């Protein structure tokens, strides 16, 4: 085929112009959709940023960062609380165990007293018999029989009283010992568990609070990132406009070449003279079309990347804060509840021990009274025995039985004295132990609980703040999620438009192929066409309508036969030059 006539070149150029015009219309329409979708996306982004800012502000205002030291203080107070009680319980258990033994001794004393009461009763009966047998001589010993009968009765009554109360006291103390014995291993276990659980809770709160404390910085970084992405999209859409103008200039150039070729037909060798200019013009447009292709690829990929970037930053870590923190708050709150339960239980068994100790004190008071009576009985028995022995010495062998009875009374008095002393010692030891136990029980007092209570109040207040902030964050996050879903819809729209634009810009390739084919044919038909044009004239002819430096650089590269200027897509744009 020869392209030496306008019949071949002009229709090709007109068809190419038409293709580029159609492409420009579609692109303009699609870019409008992209711009609208972008504005919608930016609106949702503003919503998300406002929500995130509210979360950040709330987290900062609620003093959330102060919860960690409060929980740490609580942990330390709880550990001290349990350790003190553990120590006190161990001490009390030892004392109570001793008290049980001592009460056992008192029970033994009561048994001995019972025996002595029976002996005294037997002696009383014997004395009565002997008094009758002695007749008038024996009347002087009637008092002895009466005294012995009274002693026997008193001793039996006192013994019953002592045995009864001692048994009750002993049962109460045994019960207290059982409670403490069971409590001790449980306390040890609880201390160990609380150490571990509180330690874990503190670690998770610490990490959660560390995450929270990073939130403001992350948020601000996110805001800056989003601003950059938005600037990228704004710059990219403007670059499309530059391409639009370049496209128009290429169409104008095709129209110019076609018009000049038609005009050249009027003269004899007009076409032959015009062909080199046409060739140069086609070369320039080929370069311009390649430049447009490259620039288009840049700004379309920038739009895609920036829009995805906006979505990615918007759905960042801020969204997940609320639920994560709420979970941590619940874990720590459950530890708080456990400590409160422990405190209540501790108070419960401390009250029980106090009651038992109170009962023991009362018992010891009774024992003290009985001891006084016992000492009195001892002294009277001694006196009785002494008097009886003196009386019998006056009567000689007739009063041998009474003498024997008197000696028995003396022995009983000695035995009674021993029992009295034993009771006294046991009672004193128990009283000392009760006193010591009361001192140790101080560990369970309300005053000692104060520091734990205070720590609980502070921790509870801090957790309330944390919960409020977390619940707020959770609600905000729901709205952010809804906004993010809307953004995803917009992004999908942009994606579809992007695919359409890609297909549309594929027309540039078709036009390039046609123009390159025409140019090649020109070279084949007229090999010296490349050297026959005036570069300066061609430059002036085709650059008249140019509005960008890029087009002028591309034109010069085309005329030199050099490489196409590489254009980097601007991520932000140019500054304002003030006059």
């Amino acid at each position, binding site marked *: 085929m020869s392209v030496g006539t306008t019949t071949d070149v002009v229709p090709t150029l007109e068809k190419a112009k038409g293709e580029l015009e159609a492409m420009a219309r579609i692109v303009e329409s699609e870019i409008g959709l992209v711009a609208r979708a972008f504005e919608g996306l930016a609106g949702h982004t503003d919503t998300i940023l406002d929500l995130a800012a509210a979360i950040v502000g709330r987290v900062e205002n609620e003093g959330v960062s102060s919860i960690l030291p409060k929980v740490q203080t609580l942990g330390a107070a709880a550990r001290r609380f349990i350790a003190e009680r553990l120590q006190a319980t161990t001490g009390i258990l030892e004392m109570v165990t001793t008290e049980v033994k001592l009460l056992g001794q008192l029970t033994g004393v009561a048994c001995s007293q019972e025996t002595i009461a029976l002996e005294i009763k037997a002696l009383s009966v014997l004395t009565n018999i002997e008094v009758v047998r002695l007749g008038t001589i024996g009347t002087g010993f009637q008092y002895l029989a009466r005294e012995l009968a009274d002693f026997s009765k008193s001793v039996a009554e006192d013994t019953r009283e002592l045995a009864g109360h001692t048994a009750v006291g002993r049962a109460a103390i045994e019960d207290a010992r059982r409670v403490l014995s069971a409590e001790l291993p449980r306390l040890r276990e609880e201390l160990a568990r609380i150490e571990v659980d509180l330690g874990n809770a503190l670690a998770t709160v610490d990490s959660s609070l560390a995450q929270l404390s990073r939130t403001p910085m992350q948020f601000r970084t996110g805001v800056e990132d989003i601003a950059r992405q938005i600037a990228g999209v704004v710059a990219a859409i403007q670059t499309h406009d530059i391409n*639009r103008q370049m496209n128009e200039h290429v169409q104008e150039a095709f129209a110019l070449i076609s018009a000049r070729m038609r005009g050249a037909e009027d003269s004899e060798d007009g076409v032959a003279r015009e062909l080199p200019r046409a060739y140069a013009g086609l070369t320039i447009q080929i370069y311009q079309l390649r430049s447009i292709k490259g620039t288009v690829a840049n700004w379309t990929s920038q739009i895609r990347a920036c829009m995805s970037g906006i979505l990615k930053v918007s759905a960042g870590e801020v969204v997940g804060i609320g639920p994560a923190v709420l979970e941590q708050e619940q874990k720590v709150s459950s530890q708080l509840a456990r400590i409160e339960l422990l405190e209540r239980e501790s108070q419960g068994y401390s009250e029980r021990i106090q009651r038992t100790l109170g009962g023991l004190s009362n018992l010891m008071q009774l024992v003290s009274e009985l001891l006084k009576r016992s000492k009195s009985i001892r002294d009277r028995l001694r006196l009785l025995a002494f008097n009886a022995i003196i009386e019998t010495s006056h009567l000689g062998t007739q009063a041998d039985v009474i003498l024997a009875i008197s000696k028995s009374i003396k022995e009983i008095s000695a035995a009674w004295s021993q029992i009295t002393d034993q009771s006294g010692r046991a009672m004193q030891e128990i009283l000392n132990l009760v006193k010591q136990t009361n001192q140790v029980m101080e560990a369970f007092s309300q005053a000692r609980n104060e520091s734990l209570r205070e720590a609980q109040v502070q921790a509870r207040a801090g957790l309330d703040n944390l919960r409020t902030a977390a619940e707020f964050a959770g609600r905000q996050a729901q709205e952010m999620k809804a906004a993010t879903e809307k953004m995803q819809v917009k992004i999908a729209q942009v994606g579809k438009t992007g695919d359409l634009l890609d297909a549309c810009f594929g027309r540039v390739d078709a036009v390039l192929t046609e123009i390159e084919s025409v140019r090649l044919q020109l070279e084949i038909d007229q090999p010296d066409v490349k050297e026959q044009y005036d570069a300066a004239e061609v430059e002036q002819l085709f650059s008249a309508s140019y509005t960008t430096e890029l087009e002028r650089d591309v034109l010069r590269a085309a005329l030199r036969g050099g490489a196409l200027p590489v254009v980097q897509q601007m991520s932000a744009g140019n500054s304002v*030059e003030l006059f």
Partner: protein
Amino acid sequence: MKRILTVDDSASVRQMVSFTLRKAGYEVVEAVDGKDGLAKVGSGKFDLIITDLNMPNMDGIEMMAAIRKLPGYSFTPMLMLTTESQVERKDAGRKAGATGWIVKPFDADKLIAVMQKLVK
């Protein structure tokens, strides 16, 4: 609220300028060419004008020169937003009354920063 007039024959450029300025809290009115811009100026007061250079019906330089003659617009800031960067074109713009020149694409943050200084 400060009122800004943006003049450009490209819908997408007008959209991006409006988006950027509205985000910064300005009220924005759009015009499609120099003639439309002049008409809008005649029917309302603006605190700043941003205009393209190459437009059909009336280009930006002609429009700016006409606006400068209108009462109340002797000192109104006018910025040229264009693909052109040649010295001769800038001189022409300055003589017509341009306060500043921006080669497309504009940097949103820098544009707002300058506008905040120009429009107080």
